[in-house]
């Protein structure tokens, strides 16, 4: 397994960061202006190692995600996909290695909350919403705004924020259930609500862990469309097992195996790769 940064994995920016399209979804605000994406790479992971009691969950992992890219991560169970997300979101600290968001933000030194505020959003494997709150309130809490105690005590929704929530409700097709408690939604609806919460949060990098698990075919198709429309304005990293879904959205696929990158390229390329077939697709 090659452990050095492979230049082939680095992508050209799929989107010009100097352009004005960044705020096409949601208003761009102060938090995102701090992010330096000069070189077209939004996420840089180099030589990341994580071990749990001697078990190497990630070993010398290198991964680069370009601005506006939609990257799919696949790999057999235990390949380290969820650990990878944990490292990016600050839930797990790597033993060593480099993790940068943009050019300047060192993810290994930031708390989970700081990382979220800096503009990395995450959707969990199991849909996680605030069950006791209504769909509308779920989106209200997720919305990009000041999240200090003091701000919450005084918070009033502005017309603009309300419009934004309405817009997202329409996008995720939940405008009919805006006042329903989120706990009463179907599994697929919860998945969409969580995606909607990411949309109002307006992160620059979205990490999505198995977003279409438990969705019907129609819902999966709709999700694929939604993600494709999000890419370019946002960068997405999607972990998914559903190869049909991966094939329909991804320009680039990275295969993880035993904690490092085994192969990368288009889905057709990685599916043709001998090593990938051996460890994963061949079965």
């Amino acid at each position, binding site marked *: 397994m090659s452990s050095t940064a492979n230049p082939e994995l680095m992508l050209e920016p799929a989107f010009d960061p100097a352009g004005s399209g960044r705020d096409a979804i949601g208003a761009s605000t102060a938090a995102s202006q701090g992010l330096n994406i000069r070189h077209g790479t939004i996420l840089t992971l180099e030589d990341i190692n994580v071990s749990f009691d001697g078990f190497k969950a990630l070993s010398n992992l290198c991964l680069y995600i370009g601005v506006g890219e939609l990257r799919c991560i696949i790999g057999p169970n235990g390949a380290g996909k969820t650990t990878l997300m944990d490292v990016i*979101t600050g839930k797990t600290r790597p033993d060593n290695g480099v993790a940068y968001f943009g050019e300047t933000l060192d993810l290994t030194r930031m*708390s*989970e*909350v700081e990382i*979220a*505020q800096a503009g990395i*959003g*995450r959707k*969990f494997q199991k849909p*996680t*919403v*605030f*069950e*006791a*709150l*209504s769909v*509308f*309130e779920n989106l*209200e*809490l*997720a919305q*990009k705004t000041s*999240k*200090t*105690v003091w701000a*919450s*005590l005084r*918070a009033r929704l502005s017309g603009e924020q309300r419009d934004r929530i309405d817009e997202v409700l329409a996008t995720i097709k939940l405008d009919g259930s805006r*006042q*329903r*408690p989120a706990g009463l939604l179907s599994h697929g609806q919860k998945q969409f609500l969580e995606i909607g*919460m990411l949309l109002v*949060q307006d992160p620059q990098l979205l990490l999505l862990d198995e977003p279409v698990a438990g969705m019907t075919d129609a819902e999966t198709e709709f999700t694929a469309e939604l993600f494709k429309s999000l890419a370019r304005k946002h960068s997405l990293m999607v972990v998914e097992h559903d190869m049909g879904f991966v094939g329909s959205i991804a320009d680039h696929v990275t295969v993880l195996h035993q904690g490092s990158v085994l192969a990368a390229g288009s889905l057709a390329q990685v599916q043709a790769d001998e090593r990938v077939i051996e460890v994963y697709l061949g079965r």
Partner: protein
Amino acid sequence: MNQPLAITVAQKAGPKVTLGVGALVLAVLIALPLLHLLPADNVLHVSAYTLTLVGKILCYCIVALALDLVWGYAGLLSLGHGLFFALGGYAMGMYLSREAAGDGLPAFMSFLAWTELPWYWYGTSNFLWALCLVVLAPGLLALVFGFFAFRSRIKGVYFSIMTQALTFAGMLLFFRNETGFGGNNGFTGFTRILGFDITAQGTRAALFIATLALLVGSLYLGFKLARSKFGRVLTAVRDAENRLMFCGYDPRGYKLFIWVLSAVLCGLAGALYVPQVGIINPSEMSPTNSIEAAVWVALGGRGTLIGPLLGAGLVNGMKSWFTVAFPEYWLFALGALFIGVTLYLPKGVIGLLRKRGEQ
């Protein structure tokens, strides 16, 4: 505003009844101290015993409300709220002891042959400083404890056990004579408050009114908080804390705010309890007291603010009746009540009332 439709409909069905009952209860509670002022031979006269009993229950209601804020909304089950209550009570007790002792040392200190006041007693003869202590003692303790507990992400049953241990430790500390709070006798024999005779009818009535005002104020504050975005964030802390962190919220600040607020409310309740009941001793910190407070909240219906008040009123009302009528059966009755509510009223008494309202 953004309430689920079902709840709105349910509330439309019975808001007048609810408001009516609430107003009636409030009117009765306001009338009690006034009726106490009537001469003793008047038919409508309310005895000092009744007034003190109801005043005491109102103090417990404030504790139940404070506990509901942390348990019902933020999901932090504290089994140590009795400690904050007792600390507030002790702070007030220090003032009352100084007032009773005049220029000398409080009686228990003379008894121990102490010749001067411990440093932490300085200034306690000043009512305003005593009031500051009522807020600061429970508030600072809660702040320090909460800061470390929430920083270490202690939650669930571990948090409950730690709060329980905290109040137990407090009790053991206050049992010692050397601690300087009267050992296991605590403080009693109060005579005056702000220059007024503490057993006078007018003083009793005023203390009762103050308690009622604090309860109504706390209830208002509780509803304000619960209906703000802050309240919704707390609910989110309870249900999915991880999700909330990935939304960019730092739950520690939210928990700490409500935790300290709750402790301060308990302290204030304790400070009003002591002059009405006339005694404060370390048994108020006993773990069973704190557990009982959790029973009130669970019984009334947590996360509703009104429910815990019903729970505290119901349990304590029954307690004072039972312990007079059938003293040896009280604990069995309390146990049966709790089992009954757990089995048949998962949402507490308030859940039952709301169901009635919907039908």
